[in-house]
């Protein structure tokens, strides 16, 4: 079965790698690439992100999730520079919750647009019912 793949962009290498590990537990078949940090330092790097996108590229599509500020600028630049980008979407979602939902949906074999929609809905997710 073919799955939508994920790219996790964080200012921290450890956050991106740790999140990938977490997601692999629930979605072992989904291809996930971590693009955290910039040359080992805190930051994001368009070239790392481009490599990550290309490493998990899937005909079914790829969702890129990011954490803060300049991560988006670098994700957009990476996408511009990537060779294959028609089926790549940058999701407007919180990184951890959004990626978790994306991994679940992708693991169910859902199409790209549904995975993007589901993880963007994570913005409205109620975490504590009062």
């Amino acid at each position, binding site marked *: 079965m073919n799955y939508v793949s994920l790219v996790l962009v964080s200012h921290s290498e450890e956050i991106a790698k740790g999140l990938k590990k977490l997601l692999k537990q629930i979605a072992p078949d989904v291809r996930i690439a971590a693009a955290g940090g910039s*040359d080992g*330092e805190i*930051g994001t790097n*368009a070239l790392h992100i481009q490599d990550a996108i290309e490493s998990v590229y899937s005909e079914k599509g790829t969702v890129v999730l990011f954490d803060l*500020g300049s991560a988006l600028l670098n994700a957009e*630049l990476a996408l511009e520079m990537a060779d294959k980008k028609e089926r790549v979407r940058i999701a407007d979602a919180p990184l951890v919750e959004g990626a978790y939902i994306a991994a679940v949906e992708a693991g169910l074999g859902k199409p790209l647009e549904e995975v993007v929609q589901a993880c963007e809905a994570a913005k409205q997710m109620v975490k504590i019912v009062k």
Partner: protein
Amino acid sequence: MKLSVEQAKAWIDRTNELFQQQKQYLTELDQAIGDGDHGLNMARGFQEAVDKISSNRYEDVGTLLKDVAMTLIAKVGGASGPLYGTAFLKMSQALAGRQEVNDQEWIAALEEALAGLKARGKAQVGEKTMIDVWEPVVMFLREKGRLIAGEAAQLAKQKMEETKTLEAKKGRAAYLGKRSIGHIDPGSASSHLLFVALAEVVEP
């Protein structure tokens, strides 16, 4: 007047010298309203760019500027890397294959860079960003139709100083709201230096 590959290279060299000299100043501006790494980032990125281009021979301006762009994208942290990287990438595409660049081509390349910056940063004039320097300078050159770089650098200085009166709407500084008023935007200051270096190379 035509700009050669050597002059384009000299522009990057001179920009780097100015960033090394003004590293502390740019950092202080950024400490006031940002995360305080702008001077370090620009100084490091342009030093890397100079190291890269000084070890190569270039047949055309586009290839030279592309190497600058890719170095900045790879080495400059924060928003400055993708922003300046995009600006140089757009210029490199506009000047691909050009051994010499006339005024019109150079101005057109700066226009491409400005369009790239606005698209990448999703910023407009008045939001206390580098666009507050880039847009008026590029429009001025377009209007004059000649690369009068000295006057452009003077305008860049004036526009940089005017960012003091603006409230930040983009980036880390936007969290400060009205408290960002009274400080010069660090990105507008580094952009000003880029135009100063251009003037020194074009009109020595």
